[in-house]
């Protein structure tokens, strides 16, 4: 390579830009004019081109990264339907039983209240556990991907 002239440093970024096709038309013209006069920069451009091609070629030979095995976790529709039917049935039966129970005049009021409290407590506990589970599932970021 011949010696660099003092103005060559100014053209260094443009050489890079030319390689990447990112020069404005004006910049292109400036660079072309310099390249016609300057052997040093012309040779350098060729060298940089080669270097860039070598990197890109090397990239192609790198192995494809091993990817996590994707697993779908969407619940099928029939499962939702099953749960829904069961819930509706339970509500109807439970409602009817509760109504009969309240109407039954042979039982003292304190027993009715006590039994009601037991059922209410069970329901609260059940909902509490379900809610906790749901929160856990939300924060577990690895649930959806098997690594």
């Amino acid at each position, binding site marked *: 390579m011949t010696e660099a002239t003092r103005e060559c440093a100014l053209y260094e970024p443009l050489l890079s830009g030319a390689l990447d096709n990112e020069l404005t038309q004006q910049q292109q013209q400036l660079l072309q004019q310099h390249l016609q006069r300057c052997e040093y920069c012309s040779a350098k451009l060729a060298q940089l081109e080669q270097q860039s091609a070598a*990197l890109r070629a090397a990239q192609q030979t790198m192995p494809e990264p091993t990817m996590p095995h994707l697993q779908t976790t969407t619940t099928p529709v029939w499962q939702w339907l099953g749960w829904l039917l069961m819930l509706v049935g339970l509500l109807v039966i439970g409602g009817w039983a509760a109504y009969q129970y309240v109407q039954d005049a042979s039982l003292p009021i304190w027993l009715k209240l006590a039994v009601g409290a037991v059922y209410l407590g069970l329901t609260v506990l059940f909902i509490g556990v379900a809610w906790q589970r749901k929160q856990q599932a939300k924060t577990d970021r690895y649930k959806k991907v098997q690594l």
Partner: protein
Amino acid sequence: MQTLQQQRYQLLQPHLRGAQLLAQQLLQCQSSAEDCLHDALISAFTTKGFPETAKVKAWFLQVVRFRSLDLLRQRKKLTTLDAISTLEEVVNTPLPAESNALKALSLLPFAQSDVLVLRELNDCSYAEIATIMQIPQGTVMSRLARAREALRLQLQQLERGEQAND
């Protein structure tokens, strides 16, 4: 029927190799790079802020880059990137690469290999590089020029070393 996850995976798939090279270059370790890529993929699958198709590449590379930098900071307990680039142990562990060009790349200081990986191994435009690195677009060209010059010198040095060994 395609799940959201499968759709996103298809969009990301062409950029995975480049993204892994980026992480590898930053972390200088293949297995941490793989972990980093997997983490980035998981957040890509679950995020609500997934970008439109044209911006997927820049977005994903940015996620991978930030994650790598976080890991580096944790590892080195450093707060600034400049401090990382001055650490010789980070800079001077070449990856096992068959190509001289990649070997030379891995010997470059962090700040220079970063921009080169985005341009040469991920084919990012200057606008994309500016977005990913969060720098003004006008500075991308000169950064790349400096990095390329550094790579050129590093390659010459490697070749000289090989000749000396022969």
